[in-house]
């Protein structure tokens, strides 16, 4: 189809082409060579999903009559979770659009109307947000069509409408933040809000446990919401998205119209401020915050300098802060549960703390040890490489140990043996993941943080094995030392966990990566 150069559709085609290049080549900024093997693998998985869905829908048969209210409530909860994840991704995209810019300077300097540019960027964001969910859910629509169960086709408009709503909400929120807080702060706040949105359901699910002081198991916030949903009328407007997803024609029309309306309103009301936001964002890096006279601190030791430098670099990088914060969000409820007065579920807490602390340490270690911004500077300096490495290691594990120290101390005071064991497994996981990164990780750029697993598969495998093993030890050790009868399965599990936990490090050291 020949599109008029400069039209919104022409620009949209260009945007989708760029989206495909990014998807096919694995990451932004990568050369335009598609990874055909990965694409072929993904296609095979997608076809496999179709086969699975075919078996499932064939076995279920066509749905007769209206679905039960409980089922609609469950679908509503799933859609809510999906929307929050979509919002989280959309916020990340809107921040990238405003601050990382990509081709924005070229587009803004062209004679294209700002409305077209904004529309296309919004559409691109919505498409990017919907893509992942379409990958997993589109097979239902395709197989449904094949089997004559046409209601499954509703997934397409519902997912697109949700993605458009998420993209519009994210863009409006980001632009509102720019207006309220200024461009510089918006970058940090929007990324943190995005991380919070992604973890919101988890936090809600933990809120009940944290707030409850009773002895019995506390109902989670989600369980309470689900219970109250039961009294809602089946025709309630809250169930509209779920009814649309389940193929009810009128609901589909309403949801799709809502999505379209949201996008139109967003474009018409904010396209001018979008350009203004871009201009403000462009100058944000040069923004000067005068906070009194400059402090000269030339009295620090080399180790102190390295630690302070690493913490500064991380703290001032909103993208990294939001990524690390996401992990912290999952860790904090566990830390707080330790302080609850009622009975502790010790093995679960020990396992969770060990896993999450190890995972956080792995992330920080990757950032601090491997993603060095100026490796040549360190290499040309006469400073001892060992001192710099040790200081970096301390900068990586220090914050995690500091964060978890108080809960572990409290736990040890309340239940000495499990407390000491948990402390040991938490420290083991933190140090192991840090050392694995130090020994087997390959130098990388900070921007690759999210895709770090692709860069060094071996490191990720070592990390994962070590984390699982230490978490397994945290789960099983208190039982064994607490006097529980030791069966073959328990002994075997404990032996395997101990072997992997203690054996991973020497293996990682033997296979360590040597520069050059």
């Amino acid at each position, binding site marked *: 189809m020949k599109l008029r150069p400069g039209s919104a559709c022409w620009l949209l085609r260009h945007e989708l082409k760029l989206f495909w290049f990014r998807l096919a080549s694995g990451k932004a900024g990568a050369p335009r060579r598609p990874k055909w093997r990965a694409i072929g693998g993904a296609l095979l998985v997608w076809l496999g999903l179709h086969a699975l869905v075919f078996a499932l829908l064939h076995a279920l048969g066509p749905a007769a009559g209206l679905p039960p209210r409980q089922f609609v409530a469950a679908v509503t909860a799933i859609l809510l979770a999906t929307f929050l994840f979509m919002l989280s991704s959309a916020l990340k995209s809107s921040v990238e659009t405003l601050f990382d810019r990509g081709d924005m300077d070229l587009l803004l300097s062209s004679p294209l109307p700002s409305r077209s540019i904004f529309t296309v960027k919004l559409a691109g964001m919505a498409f990017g947000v919907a893509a992942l969910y379409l990958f997993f859910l589109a097979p239902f629509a395709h197989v449904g069509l094949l089997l004559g169960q046409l209601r499954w086709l509703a997934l397409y408009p519902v997912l697109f409408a949700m993605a458009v709503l998420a993209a519009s909400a994210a863009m409006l929120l980001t632009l509102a933040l720019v207006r309220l807080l200024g461009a510089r702060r918006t970058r940090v706040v929007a990324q943190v809000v995005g991380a919070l949105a992604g973890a919101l359901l988890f936090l809600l699910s933990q809120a009940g446990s944290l707030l409850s002081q009773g002895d019995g198991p506390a109902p989670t916030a989600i369980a309470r919401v689900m219970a109250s949903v039961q009294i809602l009328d089946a025709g309630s407007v809250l169930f509209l998205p779920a009814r649309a997803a389940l193929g009810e024609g009128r609901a589909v029309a309403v949801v799709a119209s809502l999505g379209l309306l949201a996008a139109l309103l967003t474009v018409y009301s904010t396209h001018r401020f979008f350009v203004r936001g871009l201009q403000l964002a462009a100058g944000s*890096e*040069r*923004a*000067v*915050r*005068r*906070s009194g006279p*400059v*402090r*000269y*601190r*030339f*009295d*620090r*030791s*080399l180790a102190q*300098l*390295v630690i302070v*430098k690493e913490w*500064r*670099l991380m703290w*001032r*990088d909103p993208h990294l802060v939001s990524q690390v914060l996401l992990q912290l969000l999952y860790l904090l409820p566990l830390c707080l549960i330790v302080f609850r007065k009622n009975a502790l579920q010790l093995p679960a807490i020990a396992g969770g703390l060990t896993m999450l602390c190890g995972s956080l340490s792995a992330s920080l270690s990757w950032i601090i040890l491997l993603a060095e*911004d*100026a490796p*040549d*500077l*360190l*290499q*040309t*300096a*006469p*400073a*001892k490489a060992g001192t*710099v490495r040790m200081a970096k290691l301390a900068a990586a594990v220090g914050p995690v140990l500091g964060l978890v120290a108080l809960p572990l101390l409290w736990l040890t005071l309340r239940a000495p043996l499990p407390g000491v064991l948990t402390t040991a497994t938490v420290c083991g996981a933190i140090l192991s993941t840090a050392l694995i990164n130090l020994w087997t990780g390959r130098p990388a750029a900070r921007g690759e943080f999210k895709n770090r697993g692709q860069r060094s598969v071996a490191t990720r495998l070592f990390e994962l094995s070590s984390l699982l093993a230490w978490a397994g030890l945290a789960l099983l050790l208190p039982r064994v030392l607490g006097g529980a009868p030791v069966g073959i399965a328990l002994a075997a599990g404990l032996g395997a966990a101990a072997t992997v936990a203690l054996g991973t490090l020497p293996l990682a050291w033997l296979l360590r990566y040597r520069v*050059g």
Partner: protein
Amino acid sequence: MLASPALALTGLSKHFGRPAVDGLDLTVARGEFYALLGPNGAGKTTTLRMVAGLLAPDAGRIEVLGVDLAADPAAAKRRIAYLPDDPMLYGKLKPVEYLEFVAGLWGIDGKAAEPRARELLAWLDLDKHAHELTEGFSRGMKQKLALAGALIHDPELLILDEPLTGLDAGAARQVKDLLLSHVARGGTVILTTHILEVAERLAQRIGIIQHGRLIAQGTLDELRVATPGATLEEMFLRLTGPA
């Protein structure tokens, strides 16, 4: 006893599939301003990176101020500074924080480093930008900050790879003045540049390198002997052009 040269390269070689530096012999005296010229891919940057300790030579010997780089790299590195064409900076640090870190890496005492940092920042007009992160700096400001970092430990040998690329006239003048003052105080400067006028005006001796080998070396007058009346550009093109 004669003082050892600032830099002595003997039979230096480095191969990346093909020879990048091929048996290079080069000596730069102390207190000298030396310009290393050559077309793209001639081996200039590879040579400087080996001297800075960033690349290990395949063969040959590097002696910095009498210290064998391979035998005692820390002692050699303590006395040199290397400034690549892409400045080695941290975008999320402020200028003073960067200088604090570099001073720490070179083990400079705080009492000596602080006034030196103040002096360099003021000299390079960077004190006005002390509250800004370096990621927002222009190319010239970044280059000047990297130069301040290179000079904070007052190196005896300063090695610069294309230090004037992308600088405006004012910034280039500041950098040139700083380099000349470094030589005037007894320091040694080795730089590579594509701006032949810079080599012509600043350098006491010029070396021309091609295919990893030194094809001509000397003062401007010595180089002119072979081609009387020619400018450096004409000499350079004649020496490095197709045979």
